């Protein structure tokens, strides 16, 4: 997806999860061939972005913990 780094973290995560669901999950009927872009790569890329974002998330949560 385009320029996710400019979006707030919560939105980034939601977008990654949305794309994962639309391309990798959901019902598939006989005759509807699924797309080759779907698969492990997308989820893995998404997760990497997610994990990279966690330090930001942890900073967001610090005031609560204090």
């Amino acid at each position, binding site marked *: *997806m*385009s320029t996710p780094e400019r979006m707030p973290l919560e939105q980034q*995560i*939601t977008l990654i*999860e*949305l*794309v994962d*669901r*639309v*391309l*990798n*999950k*959901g*019902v*598939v*009927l*006989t*005759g*509807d*061939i*699924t*797309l080759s*872009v*779907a698969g492990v790569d997308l989820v*893995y890329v998404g*997760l990497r972005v*997610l*994990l990279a974002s*966690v*330090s930001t*998330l*942890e900073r967001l*949560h610090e005031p609560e*913990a204090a």
Partner: protein
Amino acid sequence: MLHLYAVVEGLDDLPRLAGVAGAPLGRLAVDGVEAIVSEHAVAEVEPSDAAVLEHAGVIDAAMAGSSAILPARFGRGFPDGRSLEEALRHEREELTRALERVRRCVEFGVRMLAPVEQPPDPTGPLNGADYMRARLGELERSETLAATVHLALAERSRECERVASPMSRLLLSGVYLVPVRHAAAFQDEVRRLERAHRDLGFLCTGPWPPYSFAAIGDDER
């Protein structure tokens, strides 16, 4: 070709919005199972950023107006109405069962992450065997914790699935099918778990349409 958005039950009206690439939405019913589609002159619809969001937008809107929905995976589409009708007829029983399973339910995704860095052991260097034992103990504690959290969330779900994680920091990745009327209680439970484990990162997304619980046939979990 026909692009498929979802299989629905008890849909009053089609969502008042356009589908992928501005195409008008249509409905196609066979023996009580109904599909939401749009017709396109092109051979196949590309899953661009916009198309993915439009596909998801139709599913969100259709979910609000129906009693049960199986979101469709973004596919290459059906050549014509007849081929889709055949598929619906052929898989009617399984679709009906799947609709029953997800009726009035939403989905949540929950991830639990270990802290970014493991602090070095202050007691000094360990020999290889001690290190291995310490590391194994750590992994066992992590797994016990992940299993406990998963169980607490599973108890509030109609169905759930723990997804295998490709990364050790991601202690838990799960999807949970939750009745709409218990959705707030589920989110409260996630917040309670988060407060109980402040050193861990919790990510909860949703409520989603039940994408992860819509599979039928060979895909069925």
